[in-house]
């Protein structure tokens, strides 16, 4: 359940890019890690018997999370009506921790429910602000962001003013900064609107000059606020993207590159794969040298071995006559296939097939053995079962052939997977399979 909760929180936060977490770096100074939600969730303490009311709360929460993940919004909202009875909880400790849950869960439901309207959303969040005063600022910011993403810039701005007028001890400085950051985002969107209004023809028009000036002022406001907030350690994805967009429009590539570099490589920032992705995309847009691109992706690979950019990384590495890059590509592909999301991807299997052939060509079959050593216990069941062979042959023939090639090489041509594919595909592609068998017999790795 905790995992679910964690994921839920993660998605909520990612979507709203709500990065105002005071709890960071409580545990270890200098290494900002958010507290695990386990510590925040009130659990039935060992030894003390859980009351029926709390049991209902626990199970209800679990079922709501389940419904959310299965996208059963109606069921989730029905359960939510029950869950709201916990607002009447009398214990102060529990009350505090559950306020955030009401808000997060309710927002999640209202955001996705097909029949919810923006008015529902507004009234819900207004109520939430009243019960969880501790979260007032967070709720205001998130509310404003939601309004912003619905194009209601005016209302979003009003929410920010509300947040600004709210005072609480200790938070004033950061509060101001956060609000200014969101202001910057709002300015950016106004700027985008103005830019879009300025059509191609108007760009050279005399009357458009005032509009351009207008844009310029929004640009200045936005860039000041955005750059200020991006300097703070944290995860600021939408802010960063907006800022990069702004700078690119005015051709200030150096500043953008500098900012993206800081965002990705500064140790004060929490590790964030997206930072590297943005940097890579920026570099690619501006035709950066091959070496730089590879360097960024290499770091991304360490952070997220299953990232979708890894295929691109492999194609970058496929430089002829460079032995060490073949080795690296092989490693990347093998670790990609450790993840079930890539299990039936024809491109990965295809490039693995190609890379293996390349590796054989340069005579470094030991690399393959090295990769295989740690995987031979579980890959046969994970990838190369007879059932999967039948299934992929029926549904996804290119994958089946590539996989059969790999399986034959790694496990020998007597393995179930290869045999099944060989038998099943003999009629359709006899020559290719025969060639494959020949190749496998010549280059067998299996003991």
């Amino acid at each position, binding site marked *: 359940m905790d995992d679910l909760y964690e994921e839920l929180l993660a998605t909520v936060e990612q979507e709203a890019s709500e990065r105002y977490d005071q709890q960071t770096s409580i545990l270890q100074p200098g290494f900002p890690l958010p507290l695990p939600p386990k510590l925040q969730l009130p659990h039935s303490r060992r030894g003390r*018997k859980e*009351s*029926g*009311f*709390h*049991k*209902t709360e626990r*199970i*209800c929460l*679990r*079922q709501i999370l389940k419904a959310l993940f299965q996208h059963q*919004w*109606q*069921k989730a*909202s*029905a*359960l*939510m*009506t*029950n869950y*709201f*009875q916990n*607002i*009447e909880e009398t214990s102060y400790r529990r009350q505090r921790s559950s306020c955030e849950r009401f808000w997060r869960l*309710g927002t999640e*439901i*209202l955001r996705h*429910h097909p*029949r*919810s309207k923006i008015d*529902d959303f507004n*009234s*819900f969040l207004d*109520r939430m602000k*009243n*019960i969880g005063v501790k979260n007032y600022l967070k709720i205001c910011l998130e509310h404003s962001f939601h309004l912003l993403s619905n194009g209601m810039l005016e209302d979003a701005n009003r929410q920010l003013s509300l947040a600004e007028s709210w005072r609480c001890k200790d938070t004033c400085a950061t509060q101001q900064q956060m609000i200014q950051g969101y202001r910057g985002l709002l300015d950016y969107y106004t700027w985008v609107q103005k830019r879009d209004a300025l059509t191609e023809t108007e760009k050279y028009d005399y009357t458009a000059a005032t509009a351009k000036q207008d844009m310029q002022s929004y640009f200045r406001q936005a860039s000041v606020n955005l750059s200020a907030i991006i300097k703070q350690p944290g995860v600021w994805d939408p802010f960063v993207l907006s800022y990069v967009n702004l700078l690119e429009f005015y051709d200030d590539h150096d500043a953008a590159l500098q900012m993206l570099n800081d965002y990705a490589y500064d140790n004060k920032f929490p590790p964030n794969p997206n930072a590297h992705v943005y940097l890579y995309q920026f570099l690619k847009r501006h035709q950066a040298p091959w070496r730089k691109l590879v360097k960024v992706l290499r770091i991304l690979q360490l952070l997220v071995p299953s990232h979708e950019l890894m295929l691109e990384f492999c194609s970058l590495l496929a430089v002829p006559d460079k032995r060490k890059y073949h080795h690296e590509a092989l490693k990347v592909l093998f670790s990609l296939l450790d993840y079930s999301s890539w299990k039936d991807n024809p491109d990965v299997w295809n490039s693995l097939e190609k890379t293996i052939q390349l590796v054989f060509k340069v005579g470094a079959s030991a690399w393959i053995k090295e990769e295989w050593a740690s995987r031979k216990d579980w890959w046969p069941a994970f990838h190369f079962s007879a059932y999967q062979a039948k299934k992929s042959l029926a549904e996804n023939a290119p994958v089946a052939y590539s996989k059969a090639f790999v399986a034959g090489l790694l496990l020998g041509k007597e393995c179930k997977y290869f045999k099944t594919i060989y038998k099943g595909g003999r009629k359709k592609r006899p020559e290719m399979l025969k060639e494959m068998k020949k190749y496998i017999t010549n280059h067998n790795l299996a003991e």
Partner: protein
Amino acid sequence: MDEEDTRDYREPCAQCSEVTWGITDEGKFYCRSCHNVIEKTKEVTTADSFTANARIFSISKGLRKKTKLEQGREWYLCEGFQFILKLQADAIQALGVCPQFKDEILCSFWRRYLQKSRQGYTKKPLKDMMRIIKVSESSQSSDSQSLDCWSSLSESELEEGQSDENSGPASTSRSRSPLSDDFTSVCSGSVDGRFHRPQRQRTRMLMSMPMTLAFCSMSLLWLRESITLSELLRFVVEGHIPYINVYQSFPEELKLYGKDTHIFRVDSFPSCESIQQHIYKIAAFLDLPRFPEITENCVLHPNILCIKYLMEANLPDEIHSYIWRVVKRTGMGEEASLTFDPLAKPMIPINYDIKAASIVIVTLKLIFKLDDEFEWSLSNDAESVNRNKEGVEIFNFRKWYKTMKQALDKANEGVEEDVARYMWQCKKPIFYSSKTRSVVVKRKRMVVNLQQQFKKLTGSVPRTPQQPPSSFQFTWDEESQDKPCFHGHSLRAFLKEGAVCDLLNTGYWHTALKQCRKEYCKGHLQLEEPHLPRSYIFILNLFSFMLKVDSALLHAEVHETERLLLKAKAPTTPSGKRRRRVLHLIPCL
């Protein structure tokens, strides 16, 4: 009310010299005969009569007026409990128990309780005794010394004295000290709610919510009704018997406030064991005689109760003959060991349902061995026989397991859904003190608004309406495909060829039989579970679901039954069962 307040004021009227005082709406005194209003208010009177305590009154004066507005009439906790008991008794009566239940049995238990705890129906209520002490003490000292007298009593004694003064409906007829009236009105809606404390609950058997159910269960036991304790609790959970938030249906005049909320509000369903403990205590407290005997014709007798569980667990009827033997061998069917006697030492346990379930489980272990091997291999045999032959179908353990597993999983899901959707909060907000009132009311309004908002989004999610109360949670049908019935199946696959009732199974496994002290032993099953066969664990879970008791408790009871069974000597007659080969699965823990 007026009389109580004016009784202490004995001055004649200045105009007509009569002594018939009444109190106006503003709380002022007036003469009933000449309607002359004098400059005297209720509070002043009390201050007059107890000059020593004037300070206390001046403190409570301000509060009193406020609470006066909210309060209905003055009432005692036992009135509230009586009301709850009446509701529960009506609900149980509606389930179809014998009509004597409410008016004769429960009522007389309740009266006896009131009498024994000296809350009512007694010439010498508890408070009177305390009053005598108080009066004797205060009479020794003159009026001017009364302050010393009060202060010489420790605070607890002071409260005790007051609580006793107020601890019975009988006291309304007697002049009550206005002092206590003031005190109680501050802290609780009821008169004696303030003095209801957990420590005292133990020593003096003060009422609590679980005790209402204990009273009901005890009355059912006296009548030897078929509703077992676990069943009663299930009806409570399913809402057929009022328990959670019953105070909602209190009459308007009984206002809950302050301490009362803690007494009448419950946030859990009680467990079987806790109710049993209450029954033992109440029965001992009431000095009840031996309960009517549980003979073989009673539903609570294991022989009969087991039939019910066999039916519910969808097991063949044939098993009953083996159950009958186990009951006989273990001596668990004897009246002496079944009939509840509050005065007997050691206490005779009254968990008939759990006992019966444990007997069924032990019998199943005897027949199917339940060691994850024997029952499955014989199921294969049964399957092949069934395929070839027409006629009475032979019981197939595998098929039964699949059916039951499916039904149990589904039922568990349903129960979980019900738990998740249970509404614990009542519709009417109750609050501990007037200070928190505004917060509570505000929160309640918020909840209602939020619930309305989300209800709109709910749409028409099909929700099964409340089922009528039933003794069975599982029902089986001969005809239906997904709920096939195994009652008529024969056990032939598990018997020796040609024999009438000789079992094929000759082995019997059990866990270490050493008796452990109950208070130290709680996680027995937890420790043993990984070593126990899965089919046994499944059956344990099935029965614990049916009875709504913890599986560890049931396991302990099975253990107890095994002890009785194995302690009994092997029969001397050659036709009896062979001596079992005893396998010690876990020699010791």
